[in-house]
């Protein structure tokens, strides 16, 4: 309960901060560029200001509501004996198939690989970078057979290339430092 309240306050503070920044921009940059004068037609700032104001109002309400909420009020009610009622209350949504949850560090590691892929994709192009990236991700996700990793990486890169490049005629990233053979 207290943890939830703490997160609500953090979220609301973030929302208020963002809304204040939007209002600040409309009062500075917009004014300098003369985008705030005139009536509803010429005033580019009024609508974002209005929405930012609503965000501040809702954020304050969120903080207040998290203080007046009854302790334990957020817990789901006990499931009834009737199976129909139980399932109406708690539809089973994407249950995990196993209980081997991964650590946050692991997730951050995956995120870093994805960011690195985007950087290298821009530098060296789709065809060169993607098979290595796919192989790395497959390995990170606990596939340990090298034949499977190689086949899956090459085939997925190729299928995606054919689908987008040949069928939809989209030019996939060629890379800024395109290699000689590409």
């Amino acid at each position, binding site marked *: 309960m207290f943890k939830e309240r703490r*997160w609500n306050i953090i*979220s609301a503070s973030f*929302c208020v901060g963002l809304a204040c920044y939007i209002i600040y921009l409309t009062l500075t940059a*917009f004014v300098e560029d003369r*985008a705030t004068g005139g*009536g*509803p*037609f*010429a005033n*580019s700032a009024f609508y*974002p200001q209005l*929405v930012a104001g*609503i*965000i501040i109002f*809702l*954020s304050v*309400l*969120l903080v207040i509501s998290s203080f007046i909420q009854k302790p334990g*009020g957020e817990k789901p*009610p006990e499931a009834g004996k*009737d199976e*129909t*009622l139980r*399932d*109406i*209350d708690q*539809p*089973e*949504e*994407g*249950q*995990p*198939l*196993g*209980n*081997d*949850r*991964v650590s946050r560090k*692991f*997730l951050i590691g*995956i*995120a870093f690989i*994805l960011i690195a*892929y*985007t950087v290298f*994709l821009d530098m060296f192009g*789709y065809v060169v970078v*993607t098979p290595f990236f*796919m192989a790395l*991700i*497959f390995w990170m*996700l*606990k*596939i340990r057979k090298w034949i499977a990793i190689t086949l899956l990486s090459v085939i*997925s890169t190729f299928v*995606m290339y054919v689908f987008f490049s040949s069928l*939809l005629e*989209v*030019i*996939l990233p060629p890379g800024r430092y395109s290699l000689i053979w590409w």
Partner: protein
Amino acid sequence: MHGILSGGLETFLGLQQILLTGFGVFMGIIIGVLPGIGPLLGVILFTSVVIHISPVGGMGLLIGVYVGGSCGGAISAILLRIPGTPIAAATLLDGYPMAKKGKSPEAVGLAIVASSMGGLLGGAALVFVSPLLAEIALKFGPPEYFALTVTGLIAIAVVARESTLKGLLSACFGLIIASIGTDPFTGYDRFTFGYGNMMGGIRLVALLVGLFAISEMFIQIEQGGLNIKPNIKAFRPPFSTVLTVLRNFVNLIRASAIGTFIGALPGTGGVASSFISYAMAKASSKEPEKFGTGMPEGIIASEAANNACCGGALIPSLALAIPGDPITAVLLGALMLIGLLPGPELFRQYPDIVGGLFLAYLAANIFLFVLGLLFTPLFVSILKIRKNRLIPMIILLSIVGTFAVQASIFDVWSMWFFGLVGYVMRKRGFPLAPLVIARVLGPIVEPAFRRSLILSGGSFSIFVERPIAFVILIFNVILLIWTSVPPDKMRSARVALVRLISKRSYS
């Protein structure tokens, strides 16, 4: 309506459009079968493809994914007791017990046939009702239209299961994101910070893929179970399931009517319709005590309702540009991507395309029947795919698909940013659906709002003086009060309603 359909025949009856719709259904079933993916993610992943093909073909593809995905979840619900999509949750109540009795082929067959027939009945409602609704909406001015779009935004807060306040906050951020880029009235670049890439605003595909696909993949990785392979044998459903569904004609019609009606109400969606239809089928059955033990009527009711819901959800989406759920919001976004503004004007300016969309929806349900029954062994085998093979491929499709829209690496970076935002929002209980719907409705809400103020010379009184706008806005206030009721109280009201229906069945 006749003109719309005959125009639709011209735009839809082509090999490309028909094949794309069929391909969409096929991919939709596969996507629906896989737990945790679902039709929303499927439609999002294919949105980037739409701009590269003909409007009706592209939308046919997305509608196919929507229809197929809405049914595919039933297969994993029946065989694994894990609904591939939340809307299939009611199907497992009788589907799984039926499978445990060794009647998996019958259960899956019933789900496919009932979905297809329910979808066709929902499609009939779409064809008949939406042109009438669009005709009425054509008489609306900017104030009425503003009030109507606000209704769409507030209504989506109803589906914010976590918290109405968080849902509304999420919607406001969607409106702010929609305002990024060139002001449609003055041409001034708002919140672009001098980046040329942001002048056109945040690209819808980057936003959608980031918020839904990337955050979902991270949550799937976090949940674990990466290397588990369910042990299921492939089978083919018997054709007799068609006769079983036809024998339950009343149940089918009732469930389809409920699904269509609930689907047409913004913010309610397939989960509610399938459970209400299930409860109604149980209430009107001669053997209600057998429900939950593997009754075909239960599967028919829930599946017919959740696919009829698709047709229902498309009615306000196409006719009024008010999406009933996040999937129809993405469909509207896709229409905007190809340069078509949904709403009554679409019916007036492009009746042939609207007709094409109607026919694509009807054809998708026919494809669902044919492909669903024909390729069941393949769809069942799909369940054996391990998450650690699937997740990297979805991530790759997300990256390439996002890049493909504008050939822009900036969009891929935006996608990562919104992936992080989506992940944090989901973890902290902020629903994503209102943000997406607001992002889609934003380019309609702001012009309607500012045009109204231009008409009134800057006075807000125009929203009170125009009777239709005033009534709609009052309705919004009531809706807000209703959604402010704590979820546990709302839940007890729902439970009381179902108990009432159940009691009626025993009396």
